[in-house]
């Protein structure tokens, strides 16, 4: 047989032998340890009494307005109240009031507060919201239990009652504080939005004032004015031209007004000055073509003289006076033309600036509208909050109602028992195994023929198995149990027979 197989057989035998040899020790040690843990859990582990109050949170989902504040805030409020109640001063006050723990010095006070915190248990009870609409179908707290655990049942009940009433009181305070805080915040926001809206309104009105003519609504008016000014400009230009022409005709004996005269004979007929200028120009033309004796020349010259006689202009003196009058009139019209041109340029510029002013105006208007909207929102929220405050004040809001008052616990309740027992089981198994292995290691007795032969280096002549005598066989196992039962039966029969005999 290969060495490996021998080794395996040896190991299996060793394991079997180990179990057989140490099972009693294992069971004894395990039983003792487990028994000790049971005893410890039953008698020595601190007995803890728990007293609980159930507090209902009422009116949590009356309407959508209230839901925004209350339903989502109950746990938050519970948390807040718990934190406030578990403050150092409050706990110390309760501890000293009921003489719960030792608080003589700083360290013990700290320990007492920590212990107190550990012994206060708040557990929320969740249920489906009463409002079954899908959007609001979620779990909200409708009640919570407040427990306190300690060694003395009566004290535990008193402390639990005190804590429950403190929770109810604190809830009202916290609720008021929350509304007050919210109101303050909203008021502040309202003020802020109002200031912003005012600033933007001022900006808008200033802008409008600065760009009064360039505003989009002024464009049609501007166009009409431009049209009108253009007409005026034409008229003024005509007048200027006429004056200039007249000046030119007056300057020479025939002037250069022949063209003008021929061009506007109708006008010359009505205006003797124009007719004069026209005739002078005509004479000049005739002289160029004909001699002085040509009848047309003679005729035209006599007509000129006739006209000059009529007009009182004779020679150069008359021409000078007329020129002065013309120039002053010309200056007046030129100035008028310049004014009209300036106004036209201004109006054109304004019309060109129109889109830019429009954009800026839009921006300012949008800012102003936004600010006004925020202001309106803030004002609405504030009024809602004030309305909620009024509702709460009329006791329609969230209320904490103690539906189960804490009672004096009759039986100790210690969830640690199970843990101790579980730990006891594991510890007993471990100790049993440890003791068995230790005993096996410390036991240096001879356990096999190979072992004996290795030590003695002598042949093991035979191996004699353990033989039990009849008495030993009878004393083992179920036979022993049967014997004990029979013995008990006999004794019982004897007692019965004795009783009957007496």
């Amino acid at each position: 047989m290969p060495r490996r197989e021998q080794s395996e057989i040896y190991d299996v035998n060793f394991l079997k032998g180990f179990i057989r040899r140490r099972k009693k020790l294992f069971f004894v040690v395990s039983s003792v340890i487990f028994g000790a843990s049971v005893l410890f859990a039953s008698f020595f582990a601190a007995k803890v009494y728990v007293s609980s109050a159930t507090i209902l949170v009422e009116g949590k989902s009356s309407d959508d307005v209230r839901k925004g504040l209350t339903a989502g805030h109950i746990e938050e409020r519970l948390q807040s109240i718990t934190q406030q109640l578990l403050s150092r001063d409050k706990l110390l006050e309760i501890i000293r009031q009921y003489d719960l723990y030792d608080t003589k010095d700083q360290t013990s006070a700290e320990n007492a507060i920590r212990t107190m915190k550990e012994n206060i248990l708040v557990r929320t009870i969740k249920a489906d919201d009463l409002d079954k609409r899908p959007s609001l179908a979620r779990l909200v707290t409708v009640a919570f239990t407040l427990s306190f655990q300690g060694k003395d049942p009566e004290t535990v009940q008193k402390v639990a009652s005190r804590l429950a009433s403190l929770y109810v009181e604190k809830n009202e305070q916290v609720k008021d504080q929350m509304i007050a805080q919210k109101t303050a915040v909203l008021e502040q926001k309202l003020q802020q939005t109002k200031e912003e809206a005012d600033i933007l309104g001022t900006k808008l009105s200033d802008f409008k004032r600065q760009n009064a003519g360039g505003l989009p609504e002024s464009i049609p008016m501007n166009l009409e004015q431009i049209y009108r000014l253009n007409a005026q400009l034409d008229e003024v230009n005509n007048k200027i031209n006429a004056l200039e022409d007249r000046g030119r005709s007056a300057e020479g004996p025939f002037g250069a007004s022949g063209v003008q005269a021929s061009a506007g004979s109708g006008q010359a007929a009505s205006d003797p000055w124009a007719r004069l200028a026209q005739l002078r120009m005509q004479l000049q033309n005739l002289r160029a073509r004909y001699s002085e004796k040509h009848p047309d020349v003679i005729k035209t010259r006599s007509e000129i003289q006739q006209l000059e006689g009529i007009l009182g202009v004779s020679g150069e003196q008359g021409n000078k006076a007329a020129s002065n009058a013309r120039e002053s009139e010309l200056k007046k019209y030129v100035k008028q033309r310049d004014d009209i041109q300036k106004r036209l340029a201004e109006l054109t510029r304004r019309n060109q600036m129109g889109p830019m002013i429009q954009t800026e105006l839009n921006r300012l208007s949008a800012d102003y509208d936004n600010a006004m909207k925020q202001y309106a929102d803030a004002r609405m929220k504030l009024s809602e909050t004030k309305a909620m405050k009024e509702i709460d004040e009329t006791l329609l809001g969230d209320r904490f109602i103690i539906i189960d008052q804490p009672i004096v616990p009759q039986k100790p309740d210690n969830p640690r028992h199970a843990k101790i027992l579980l730990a006891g089981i594991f510890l007993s198994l471990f100790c049993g195994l440890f003791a068995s292995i230790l005993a096996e290691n410390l036991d240096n007795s001879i356990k096999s023929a190979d072992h004996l032969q290795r030590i003695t280096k002598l042949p093991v002549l035979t191996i004699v198995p353990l033989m039990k005598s009849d008495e030993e066989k009878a004393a083992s196992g179920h036979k022993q149990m049967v014997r004990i039962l029979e013995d008990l039966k006999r004794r019982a029969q004897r007692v019965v027979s004795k009783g009957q005999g007496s």
Partner: protein
Amino acid sequence: MSRLKKALEKAKKDRGDSAVDLANRIDPAPPPGEGVLSVVPQREYRPFKPEYSCTQVVPCDPDALRSNRVVAVCTEDEANKMKILRTQIMNLIMEQGKNSFLVTSANPGEGKTLTSINLAISFSHQLNKTVLLVDTDIRKPTLHKFFGLGDRPGLSDYLIGKARIQDVLINPGLDRFVILPGGRPLTNSTELLASPRMTFLLNEMKQRYDNRFIIFDSAPVLTSADPMVLSNHVDGILIVVEAEKTKREDVKKVLEVMRDKPVIGTVLNKLVG
């Protein structure tokens, strides 16, 4: 094959060897007037039945033997273990013409006496040999208890001169098997066993009959000097070791004490499983 083995085989063939049969067969008392040492051996290969003249025949209760785990009356399997041991010892000792050995152990309670008895009975099953089992643990003699015998004179009484040898030898009702009980418990056992009277007795027992085999049940080595004294007179020493009880150190001490003695081997006793 040895002569003894041949005899054994022949005897088995003739009549069928059964431990139970032998145990239950109680021979009639030998005629009075003859000493135990005058048992006349018959040298033929047929069942040898000595007639005891001086040796007292005290038939033992088979139930007492069974309850005391004497394998001769127990199961065949248990008896076979003793046959193996017997064969091994025969190979080691008797082949050399020697006829005595000592059974001892490191500590009390390891099974010396029972091993001695079972081995002796196993030897007695050989048809041409007689066996004498001597309880030399005269501080705490226990041999007689295994046979259900009450307190009676034994080796110690003989050594202090209070009894004759024929008064202390007992045949417990088994063929070819005689026991010498320890007698009254004495504390000076080592001195008595080292006395000339004991030396004389030993020589007489060993040399008087060549077909007799003598087994000495001794006190433990680590608690008494008796085995040391006896070891000078025996041809072999068998050390009984109790499984899962006898410590390695104790076995080593025994071997150290018996360093120069004729230790022939060990028996691992009470092995479980």
